[in-house]
């Protein structure tokens, strides 16, 4: 029991990390795109849990709503619209996938080597900066909103314009001639 109490956060990290990586591997190896989409949902939810473990509750909720809700429904609809049963994939991967897998493993090894030989210093040296705005202690959502609507108001508006353009583009692309 003591082990669980003292290492609870680390165990949660490893649980969700393995879930995310395992489901991500399933996404690119499963033959049926519907199963890939469900695995992708598992990855999204695990990553959202990892966000919560790093005190990013607002981003975690946005992740669940936008990815788990919006994007996943979009994918499932298109799969049902497009992927008829007669479209059997004979060969799901290209010819050079062993070479690509070796390069990917080398990339992971390189990043792991660099990251574990780097010293990042103490984590969270000033915890009050995450929640404190003008002398008033705020939660994560309030702090993010404060920052988003003051310092990043222009990028926020540009993002809304971008979403409008993307919506119009999608409608134009999918329209019947």
């Amino acid at each position: 029991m003591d082990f669980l109490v003292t290492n609870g956060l680390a165990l949660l990290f490893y649980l969700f990390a393995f879930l995310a990586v395992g489901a991500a591997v399933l996404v690119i190896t499963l033959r049926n795109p519907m199963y890939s989409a469900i695995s992708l949902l598992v990855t999204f939810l695990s990553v959202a849990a990892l966000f919560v473990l790093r005190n990013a509750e607002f981003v975690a909720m946005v992740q669940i709503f936008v990815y788990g809700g919006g994007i996943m429904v979009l994918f499932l609809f298109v799969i049902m619209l497009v992927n008829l049963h007669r479209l059997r994939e004979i060969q799901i991967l290209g010819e050079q996938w062993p070479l690509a897998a070796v390069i990917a493993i080398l990339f992971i090894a390189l990043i792991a080597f660099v990251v574990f030989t780097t010293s990042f210093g103490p984590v969270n040296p000033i915890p009050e900066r995450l929640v404190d705005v003008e002398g008033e202690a705020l939660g994560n959502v309030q702090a993010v909103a404060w920052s988003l609507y003051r310092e990043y108001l222009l990028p926020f508006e540009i993002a809304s314009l971008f979403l409008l353009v993307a919506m119009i583009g999608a409608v134009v692309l999918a329209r019947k001639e």
Partner: protein
Amino acid sequence: MDIGTAHYLVLSAILFAIGMLGIVTRRNMIVVLMSIELVLNSVNLNLIAFSYQFSDLTGQIMAVFTIAVAAGEAAVGLGILVALFRLRSTTELDRAMELKG
């Protein structure tokens, strides 16, 4: 046992590599779009990890913007997919050869 920024960066690299592998090897365009979402998710993990490391909210704000871009990208990508399917009756990328790619 302490989970530091390094763990998050390695996890992010693993997810990035898996997503990249899916982009370059899979032949079904739907799965390629899913792999792009995996790559964008790994970027978000990086941003959140550094936001926690430096107690700076900018990383979380950027993660929100990344999610917005991912939503737009998914909508446009799936629109292209539907248009391709209407033209070719397939979702295999190797069959879309108009640009000689």
